[in-house]
């Protein structure tokens, strides 16, 4: 499995650390409320299909990357720097 780091190019999966759903970018504030925090920490769509998740190029440039991929076929559709994704959402 190979992932294209936006900075380093295509690298083997073994260079990366996987965190989980990219919804981790959308952290509720302290006053988000119990439900928002439960959703953020625990609840997942968990799609059988296209998903966006967060990978960390741990053995490379240390970039956090949002990867758009398919959980059924493992096809990777897009990779973007998480910081850019977050900045455009702020």
């Amino acid at each position, binding site marked *: *499995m190979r992932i294209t780091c936006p900075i380093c190019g295509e690298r*083997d*999966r*073994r260079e990366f*650390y*996987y*965190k*989980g*759903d990219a919804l981790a970018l959308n952290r509720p504030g302290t006053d988000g409320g*119990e*439900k928002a925090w*439960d*959703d953020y*920490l*625990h*609840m*997942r*769509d*968990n*799609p*059988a299909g296209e*998903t966006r*998740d967060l*990978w960390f190029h741990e053995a490379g440039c240390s970039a956090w990357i949002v990867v758009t991929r398919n*959980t*059924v*076929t*493992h096809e990777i559709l897009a990779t973007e720097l998480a910081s850019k994704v977050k900045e455009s959402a702020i």
Partner: protein
Amino acid sequence: MGFSGWRVIKEGLTGNRGWKPQWRDAAPKKDYDVLIIGGGGHGLATAYYLAKEHGITNVAVLEKGHLGSGNIGRNTTLVRSNYMMPGNSEFYSHSLKLWEGLSQELNYNVMHSPRGQIVLNHSDAQRDGAVRRGNAMINRGDEAELLTRDDVRRMVPYLNFDSARFPIYGGLLQRRAGTARHDAVAWGYARAADERGVDLVQNCEVTGIDMKNGKVTGVQTTRGVIRAPKIAVVVAGRSSQVAAMAGMRLPIESHVLQAFVTEGLKPCIDHVISFGMGHFYISQSDKGGLVFGGNLDFYASYASRGNLPMKEHVMEAAMTLMPMIGKAKVLRSWGGIMDMTPDGSPIIDRTLIDGLYLNCGWCYGGFKAVPASGYGFAHLLATDQHHATASKFRLDRFRSGRGLMDEEATGSQHNLH
């Protein structure tokens, strides 16, 4: 007529023409008292115990493929009760007791083999952890022995004691832990449930859950509409998809776990061995293949197959731990879909939807749980009360933080359990 040595001989002498179907290939009726979505180990066990313990037989198991086509048919067959957290501890202890009479109970040889499991430790800190866990097991009424390095060496001389990167300090032994034949468990429960009148409906995929006024009324399937006041969802890695049919989101992330078997070899590994410094555990099946595995591939997946990095890590762990299996050859590798939860422990609970019950979140440890899961889930379905041994597997524990059972102590990231 049941199964026995005499039966095998009798049938053998008469041309083996007397063997009958072991279950009916049932067509679904229009309605049932209970529908069990998922014909894997847990679903079939639930059906059996509903019939056996509670006399509830107007039940259908709806399986989208053939019976036992999911994780029950592709795991590494370990059976043990070395869990520590309250909630898990009593549950797996109960499950192990059920395993011990299971072949006789089902009249189907599930080949339960309590060959003993040794969990190795490689540091003082790990050893302290083993002491804590061993005491928890003994306090539960199970057994555990702390092994010194020399003890381990006597039992398992082929491990690398002299030149390993992470030396073996000792181990924790549970003698009653071991293995069983995975397919036989599914088939045994299937046959026994069918015998008691449960309909096992294969090639029947649930495509929708019907509800009215916050209460379930039945399901839509590829073989028609079926009505029931109680619906039990027990579909492991597919839980999110089925729950979504009822408008529910779950605290589940589905991941791939790979496992491996080698070509058949004459007996060389008599125990279940677990490595403490890498992701690796191994046993030898009765057919001679070494059955082993490691950790998740760590990325969410429904593909039931994994990639080389974790494969290689597992093989590397094997080589550093027991180099004598270097010339054993991996014959087949496969993967399943693991329903990972934020604390790594399961869910057996009602939901906020009246009549909808959920059994999921077994992560990669569901095989050993099959008997107690079926037992506990059947109890919940029949009485609407949690069984004492399965009372803490609540769906809402993550939200409140009460009763979390984080065995790995890694926190709410799903794939870290």
